[in-house]
């Protein structure tokens, strides 16, 4: 048995560090993402799948069931669409959100407070921005996976009404990225289980009221403003525009909203990781 350890020259590649992000970013978030993927081998697949089925069940019960009573709905721009095709894009946005939130909130909470995962990572040449980006990318993958599954279900029921529905896939990535990013940022400031419950407390009403099942024009203006400030509404409107083919330049606002959400989430997650593990 050999007991001396061969030393290999230059095992660690010279860092190509950027001038401004040098101390927080090593350009190696894929190692963090790779770690996340490897760790899923030990995760419980039933829990993973249950998150996917929730929006599918809503689609079947409300879209097909309730839809047979409602018939068609008039969208914001005056287009008439079958009820199932009206709520399906909203549920697609929801499945992207659910998937992204799953890993970026509770899982991150446990890693932050009970595991020492990030402490270990940040003792290497990796920086807090690598950790934030890698973990968020991992979380958004689940959102994307749920959404792709949901898209297939939609296609099966003929609920993609226009070719632009294909663009819903990149849109879904954007939405999942936004939720994962903000979800991790918020979670990184949470210290107790009670605080984590607040996230659920916000998520449920957001799910129900964000023009998911009916247009928000049914609400008084004040209520509409609140809903329009929340991220899910932007996701719903963006995807609905794409899958129903009801396009307008206004959709770009939603894209911008998510770009901002991603940026804010990344900045605060990085800041927080730095304060917790590198102070």
């Amino acid at each position, binding site marked *: 048995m050999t007991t001396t350890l061969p030393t*290999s020259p230059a095992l660690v590649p010279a860092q190509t560090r950027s001038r401004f992000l040098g101390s927080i970013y090593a350009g190696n978030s894929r190692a963090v993402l790779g770690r996340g993927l490897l760790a899923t081998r030990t995760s419980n697949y039933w829990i993973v799948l249950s998150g996917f089925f929730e929006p599918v069940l809503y689609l079947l019960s409300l879209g097909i069931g309730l839809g047979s009573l409602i018939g068609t709905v008039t969208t914001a721009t005056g287009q008439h669409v079958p009820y199932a095709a009206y709520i399906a894009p909203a549920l697609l946005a929801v499945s992207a959100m659910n998937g992204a939130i799953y890993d970026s909130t509770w899982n991150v909470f446990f890693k932050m407070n009970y595991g020492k995962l990030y402490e270990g990572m940040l003792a290497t040449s990796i920086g807090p921005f690598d950790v934030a980006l890698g973990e968020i990318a991992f979380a958004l993958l689940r959102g994307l996976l749920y959404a792709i599954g949901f898209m297939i279900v939609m296609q099966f029921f003929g609920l993609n009404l226009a070719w632009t529905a294909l663009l819903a896939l990149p849109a879904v990535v954007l939405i999942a990225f936004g939720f994962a990013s903000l979800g991790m940022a918020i979670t990184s400031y949470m210290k107790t289980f009670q605080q984590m419950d607040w996230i659920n407390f916000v998520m449920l009403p957001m799910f129900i009221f964000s023009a998911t099942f009916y247009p928000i024009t049914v609400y008084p203006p004040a209520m509409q403003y609140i809903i329009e400030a929340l991220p899910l509404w932007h996701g719903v409107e963006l995807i609905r525009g794409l899958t129903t083919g009801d396009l307008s330049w206004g959709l770009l606002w939603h894209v911008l909203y998510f770009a901002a959400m991603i940026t804010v989430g990344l900045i605060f997650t990085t800041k927080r990781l730095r304060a917790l593990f590198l102070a």
Partner: protein
Amino acid sequence: MPEAVITASLLTKKYKDFAAVDGISFEVAPGESFGLLGPNGAGKSTTMRMVGAVSTRTSGDLTILGLDPDLHGPEIRAQLGVVPQADNLDQELRVRDNLIVYGRYFGIPRRQVAKRADELLEFAQLSDRAKSRVDDLSGGMKRRLTIARALVNDPRILLLDEPTTGLDPQARHILWDRLFRLKEQGTTLVLTTHYMDEAEQLCDRLVVVDKGKIMAEGSPAALIKQYSTREVVEVRFGSEKNAKVAKLIKGIGDRIEVLPDRILIYSDNGEAELSEIIKRGLNPITSLVRRSSLEDVFLRLTGRSLIE
């Protein structure tokens, strides 16, 4: 002397008003094995974390491999191996994957890191546990895995915070052997320990820290020479009589220390002092002449009582 790989001067870390590390200065030369000794709460781990570039200093200067950790954290950490006081292995990954993933954090290519992982498993004698879950390992095995993990990037400096706490004697000796080999290969070692024999075995030079300040510095032999005598006589008279006897043996040896259970006489010739005690008609229940150790130095410098 070649240029130091670690230079700390007036290094200070404060938590609010409390100075956990209070203006310590030291240098570590390349290839040297440097120890930090000190009682609980002395500031050893805090110092190690600053040297490991995961904790920012409040004031003072610190240079690791010529770089300032405040500005070059990732580059410094790329060349360090860190064994923290409490294991922080990745519990969601298996043993071998722990090494591979850790190597990937350093940006080591997949193929190289796989080979490295197998070498390290061999080195840590964990090859047959490659596929185990981390939780299924014993405490000592986890420790060995943590040390193996710290070596994945072939570090220039290895930081070991109480590396052998919780290990059985066999595992400790194996580990000392491994650390010795690394030292021979030119790795700089910085370690903290509560085991004085470990410090004597492994450290070329050490500092004794207490309440965030350096109390003494030198090689183990030099410290013993400076702060203790060559030998120590330990005599017991029973706990009631100790104090009374203490008066009668005044003047014997260089220094006398009266403890609740025994009396210590520091001297360069222990046997001579012991016969002097017996000549004075005092009959100790037990007596022992031993060589002075680092432990004597440690206790002298940091006091015997437990002040928390």
